[in-house]
């Protein structure tokens, strides 16, 4: 029984981590809490569903398509909303409020286009097959989800650690002004970051949509809350922290749902988040931050 729960937790946790990575990347590089990330996640799963059911695309094409669609939305949000606010040097909470508006718009658009009811992927596109490892019932789908999530995260880590692009991004995270003076194309990298982050959010949406096989316009909101919990657990803007925080939340949630009550799973996440903010605002693994007045 416990092993089964651990597998569920790993599946869920790896998607949380993937989702939170995009979220924390935007915060680290653009210094914006992008509260439309949950809606972008939802858009990703609808995009994949539309491609699978209307264009008869195979699942992997639909996944790539979903990344492009949600990535493009992220890019548009950056170009149309965040960039003018940066140009105006708006106080740091203003972009956050604007992204709330974007999230409402996306959710409402999805509700208008696809209706409020739960939609499902057609049975025949789901990766079939399941087997037993000892007592544990393993679905091929779960293996695929974990593999895709970790593959994408590995790619992102490698880019950030080993390439010129990654070094430039880390320089911007440290100080956009200094990076600009060093000749880094800051605006361009902001756009790339927004695209990549939203694409990661979108694929996370597809994976969650597949895992529970349920897609609704409102699925973004609870995910956004979990994303917030994860990046606060891991430290805001901390890439490695988002990975560990995501897995941690997955485990905490599944275990408390299994052994406490189904509703308390969410309360545990937020209680934990609340506690972390009070005791260690820089996250579980964070360096001590300068106190920002």
């Amino acid at each position, binding site marked *: 029984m416990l092993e089964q729960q651990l597998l569920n937790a790993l599946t869920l946790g790896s998607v949380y981590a993937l989702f939170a990575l995009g979220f924390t990347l935007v915060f680290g590089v653009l210094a914006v809490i992008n509260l439309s990330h949950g809606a972008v996640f939802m858009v990703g799963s609808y995009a994949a569903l539309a491609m699978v059911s209307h264009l008869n695309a195979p699942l992997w094409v639909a996944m790539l398509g979903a990344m492009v669609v949600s990535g493009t939305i992220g890019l548009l949000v950056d170009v149309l*909303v965040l960039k003018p606010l940066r140009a105006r040097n708006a106080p740091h909470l203003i972009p956050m409020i604007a992204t709330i508006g974007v999230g409402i718009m996306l959710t409402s658009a999805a509700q208008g286009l696809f209706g409020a009811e739960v939609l499902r992927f057609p049975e025949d596109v789901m990766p079939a097959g399941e087997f037993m490892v000892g007592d544990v019932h393993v679905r091929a789908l779960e293996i695929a989800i974990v593999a895709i999530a970790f593959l994408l995260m590995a790619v992102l880590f490698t880019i950030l650690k080993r390439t010129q692009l990654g070094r430039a991004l880390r320089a911007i995270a440290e100080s956009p002004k200094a990076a600009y003076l060093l000749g880094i194309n800051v605006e361009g990298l902001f756009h790339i970051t927004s695209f990549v982050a939203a694409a990661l959010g979108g694929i996370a949406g597809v994976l969650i949509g597949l895992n529970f096989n349920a897609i609704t316009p409102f699925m973004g909101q609870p995910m956004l809350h979990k994303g917030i919990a994860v990046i606060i657990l891991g430290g805001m803007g901390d890439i490695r922290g988002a990975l560990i925080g995501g897995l941690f939340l997955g485990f905490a949630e599944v275990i408390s749902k299994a052994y406490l009550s189904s509703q308390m799973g969410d309360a545990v996440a937020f209680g934990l988040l609340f506690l972390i903010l009070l005791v260690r605002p820089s996250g579980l693994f964070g360096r001590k931050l300068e106190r920002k007045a």
Partner: protein
Amino acid sequence: MEWFNDFWSTYSTLVFSVGVHALLALSIWLTLSCGLLSLANAAFMGVGAYVSALLTLHLEWSFGSVLLAGGIAPTLVALIIGAPVLRLSGVYLAMATLAFGEVVRITVLNLEITGGPEGLNGIPLATEGWHIALILAVTVYGLARLRRSKVGRAFEAIKEDEVAARLMGINVDRYKLLAFSLGAFIAGVAGALNAHFTFFISPREYGFENAVDILTMAVLGGTSSLIGPMLGSSILTLLPELLRSLQDFRSLVNGAVLVLVVLFLPKGLWESRRIRAFFKRLKGGQA
């Protein structure tokens, strides 16, 4: 009087909502005026609504004392969580208050006495138009006086520059706690008023979306004066009624309004300086 009765029987709930939303927008205006972005006001409203409804249903308190209790309960909560939470600033404060709101919502969802996900049903109708009007008037008067007082100036100083305010000898922590808990009081009373004309309350009404709605009202109207939040809340309450034909796309307009206001009217719709300039121009044109 005939037309008025017709109008009232159709739209009284809407008018009541405008009043309650105005109170909520003012409650977040108060915390914003001290430079705090708190997303806890929907939760405070919920605490007020549940406490007052439970007192009415189980203990049959009089409406006046129920309203007062509805305000005091969230104030106490605010005082308790305020001390640790208000050490955080900016985004961190917003996230912590958001998390607090979720904890409240989930708690209410799981308690037996609050009726769980079904909420509380059959709350007697007690709120009348003049209750809301009176409380709104008192709140506006009180806040207007507060703005011009030592406390209001301290809030403004903290909002402009916390470190400078501290150096001026302002007890920053205490004033922040004051703004936070006064805001909770107003939101709680609004929740109590609301519970006693909707007959029914459920945890769904006090979640993140509602916290955002309250914030949107204040941001849309503008926070540089007291008129702004009231204007914003009226518009956002009436707008959905006017946009009924859009059905599912209705809240698209809400979101778009929020984005457009942030982009093009950073000070909100009601910016006293701009409006004064407008009237001056008008007068100049006539002369």
